């Protein structure tokens, strides 16, 4: 089964872009999730939030909406927006691969968030497309955690 491998340099660029988006959109929290619900990176007020659960539910949300889109003969709903009493959440698909989530309150606005998300999405798309094409050569340079893992290591984990 295919794996999604994220290397340090790509992670840094993603983190930088999320930070920029966080600042420029006056957001409370910005995070990136893969479509299977695994958290890739997050920036902002994450201390009191269970980001792992948030990531999984966001991916579930996108998956459910994608299912609805298909039933209606649409390819995808690429943006979701939920308005709350205090906080709002803007969810969008980037490069059809990852999900960009921005949580914001009255210090920002939907218009500003949409604008900044659009700009950041272009940068992130670039990072992910490079990651895809560069993967083969990087694979040789990096030492895989599985390269010399033994059955004993696996047993020990479950000991």
């Amino acid at each position, binding site marked *: 089964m295919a794996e999604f*491998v994220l290397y340090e340099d790509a992670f840094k660029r993603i983190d930088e872009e999320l930070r920029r988006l966080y600042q420029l959109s006056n957001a409370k929290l910005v995070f990136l999730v893969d479509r299977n619900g695994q958290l890739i990176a997050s920036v902002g007020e994450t201390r009191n939030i269970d980001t792992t659960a948030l990531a999984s539910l966001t991916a579930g949300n996108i998956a459910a909406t994608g299912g609805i889109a298909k039933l209606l003969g649409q390819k995808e709903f690429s943006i979701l927006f939920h308005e709350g009493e205090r906080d709002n959440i803007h969810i969008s698909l980037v490069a059809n691969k990852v999900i960009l989530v921005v949580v914001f309150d009255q210090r920002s606005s939907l218009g500003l968030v949409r604008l900044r998300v659009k700009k950041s999405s272009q940068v992130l798309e670039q990072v992910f497309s490079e990651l895809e094409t560069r993967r083969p050569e990087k694979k040789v340079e990096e030492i895989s955690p*599985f390269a010399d893992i033994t059955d004993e290591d696996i047993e020990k984990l479950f000991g």
Partner: protein
Amino acid sequence: MSFINYSTREINCKIVYYGPGLCGKTTNLQYIYKKTAPEQKGKLISLATETERTLFFDFLPLALGDIRGFRVRFHLYTVPGQVFYAASRKLILKGVDGVVFVADSQIERMDANIESLEDLKINLAEYGYDLERIPFTIQYNKRDLPNIVPVEEMQRVLNPNNVPYYEAIATEGVGVFETLKDIGKQILKELKKNY
């Protein structure tokens, strides 16, 4: 699809508990949640109906320890077992690394087991996965009930490829961790094989 993050030094894997309605998928996750140390687990999220039937999925993140400096995390999901939630079930299988099929041992649920297993194969095929080629464990649950099918018969009907199987009483925790350990090991061995 496992997710390996070199920056945070994490390996994330997705396990899905599949099976017919009321077979005990959620009960497996609840028991695991109850018996795991706080630092090893996240919140157990259940998207359920008012009558506690799974509506979309249950989710439990587990971090069991490190392998070669990489933190290994398992994300456990259940699917809604009821027949009419077919569309939701399929969505949850996306990116799965290993499947646990929880079979209900009661005689009257054998047809439901067969139907659910067929549904699993079809849904996996739609993502290009083949049940015979991915990490797969079967759990025969509810072994404490009086009207159950003998294990040999369940094996013959549900497990022709003889994948690892465990007898369980999920409400009491019997066989729950054995099943989880087995699928976890299979997934890591599969990852190892690919390198």
